[in-house]
């Protein structure tokens, strides 16, 4: 091949080539380089590269200098510097990009003395690769975003599942409680009734015994009386007669307490029937306090103010029970021992007012707006479902009532409920 043929090959090469001398004067450009430029120059040969491409002059000079000094090629990549030379995209019809993405090589051309006489700048069009790479990157980012979203969703689902399990657990506890209540109810029933009978028998026996003793002391010989007194004393009959009624009385009281607890458990556990009925709010408060007695006794004293006449209104009994229970439990959890749990209930025209307040830690002002949100909880993970107060809110809504919460950090929180007395 002769020189003309070589030049033709270089001219037709599908990459831009531009040769400069040590003064950065352009000595040659091929058609891909010249034709690709978006700036219109009549000719490039003889002109200074750094003047023509003034915007990239600093960068070009740095690269070219290093090639002249080190006699080694230098490179530039589209990732860091996408458009070294202003060239239009080679995909003018279908491409999204208007400018060509370029990889540029600066190659030393060694002369006869072994020095770098010229530098050949080769511009490779990598628009397609760059575009593909950027698409892939965008896709990857999108996938990562989706993945993150899915993961979040998955976590939420897991939490929801956990909460469902929790409420199922609560439901089975309810069933268990109902079962236990039923089982206890029967034996405690006959224990109580037997105790009452025993009480009656005991009264009669003691009275008979006393009468007997009186008669004997009047009629019998002194020796016989002394013997009897001795037997009485040895067996502590006088003390037994005194203590027996107290023991029976205490046992009866005990069974009464068991009965109340059982009733409380049964009320708590009674299945969610959707029927509305006349609900005795005063009684419900009483039974809630009994159910919570164990929680309360180490945490707080209670101050309950109820009107003499029972407050009765049209409501869903199980929902109201749950409302009382959830609100009281929260109040108890907020308190360090010993606090005061106050419950007040009364009428205001046609409204029923119920307030439940504690002397606990209070609610952060930022949290106050969110306490009724489902799953909002400040308790540790696994300790609270964040459903209690949302159930309360749902119940209030269902009963066309209102709830107002005031709280002061370190002082306590007050839930004020308003229900319609004439909802029916």
């Amino acid at each position: 091949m002769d020189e003309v043929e070589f030049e033709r090959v270089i001219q037709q090469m599908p990459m831009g080539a531009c040769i400069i001398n040590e003064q950065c004067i352009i000595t040659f450009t091929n058609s891909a380089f010249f034709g690709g430029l978006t700036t219109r120059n009549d000719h490039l040969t003889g002109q200074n590269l750094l003047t023509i491409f003034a915007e990239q002059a600093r960068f070009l000079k740095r690269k070219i200098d290093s090639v002249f000094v080190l006699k080694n090629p230098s490179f530039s990549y589209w990732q860091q510097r996408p458009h070294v030379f202003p060239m239009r995209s080679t995909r003018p019809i279908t491409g999204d990009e208007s400018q060509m993405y370029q990889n540029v090589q600066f190659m030393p051309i060694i002369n006869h003395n072994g020095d770098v006489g010229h530098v050949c700048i080769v511009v490779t069009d990598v628009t397609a690769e760059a575009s593909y790479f950027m698409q892939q990157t965008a896709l990857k980012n999108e996938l990562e975003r989706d993945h993150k979203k899915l993961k979040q969703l998955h976590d939420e689902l897991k939490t929801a599942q956990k909460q469902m399990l929790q409420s199922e657990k609560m439901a089975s506890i309810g069933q268990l409680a109902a079962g236990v209540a039923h089982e206890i109810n029967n034996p405690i029933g006959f224990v109580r009734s037997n105790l009452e009978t025993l009480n009656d028998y005991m009264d009669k026996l003691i009275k008979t015994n006393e009468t007997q003793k009186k008669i004997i002391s009047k009629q019998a010989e002194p020796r016989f009386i002394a013997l009897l007194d001795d037997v009485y004393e040895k067996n502590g009959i006088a003390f037994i007669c005194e203590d027996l009624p107290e023991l029976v009385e205490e046992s009866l009281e005990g069974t009464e307490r068991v009965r109340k607890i059982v009733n409380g458990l049964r009320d708590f556990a009674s299945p969610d029937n959707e029927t509305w009925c006349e609900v005795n709010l005063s009684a419900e408060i009483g039974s809630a306090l009994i159910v919570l007695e164990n929680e309360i006794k180490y945490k707080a004293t209670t101050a309950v103010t109820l009107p003499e006449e029972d407050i009765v209104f049209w409501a869903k009994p199980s929902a109201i029970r749950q409302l009382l229970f959830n609100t009281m439990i929260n109040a108890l959890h907020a308190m360090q021992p010993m606090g005061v749990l106050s419950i007040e209930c009364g009428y205001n025209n046609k409204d029923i007012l119920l307030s439940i307040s504690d002397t606990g830690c209070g609610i952060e002002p930022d949290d106050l707006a969110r306490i009724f949100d489902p799953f909002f909880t400040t308790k540790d993970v696994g300790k609270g479902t964040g459903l209690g107060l949302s159930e309360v809110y749902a119940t209030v809504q269902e009963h066309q009532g209102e709830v107002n919460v005031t709280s002061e950090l370190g002082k306590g929180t007050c839930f004020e409920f308003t229900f319609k007395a004439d909802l029916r």
Partner: protein
Amino acid sequence: MITLSEEEQDALQEIMNISMGQAADALARLIQTKVALSVPAIEALSPEAFQGMLEGLKSSWSARQSFVGSIRGEVITSIQKEGCEALADIMDFDLPLDKAATEELVLEVTNILSGACLQGFTSQLELTTQLNMPAFYYPENAIKNIDWSSVLVIEVDFKIEHMKFDARVLIGLSEGSIEQALIPIRALLEE
């Protein structure tokens, strides 16, 4: 495992000393700043030992550059992050460095160092090689599918004292290339 005779080791060491000195010189001329360099360490490493060496690069910026020709291998250059800004300043980069500019700086310095180092010793041994474009390298994952049993590594440190610039150049020669590089060395020793 490659074993070099004592004479071969000495000769190779001598050649490396000269060529790395030339590399430091060229670099100093380019950036108009004095560059200090360590005595090149030449060592044949097992894949495990080489992996261990790469582990040590994790806190630095790294780039790799392959070379092909009569000898083949890769140059891995790692530059401590601390001195980058100062170097960028004397190399006429815009400060502060953004991500793209940092990458460009690391690739440029890699290209300069590997070019200079490789050229020095290939020209002394009259070998011909050509460097490919450098690419950023994150030696985070272990090298998989290793099909070699040992690699000859030439390690040199370049430092610019007053600007905390510290770069380590590892030239790894592939197994077949070591024999190739030893031919001219043995010829020199026989003379």
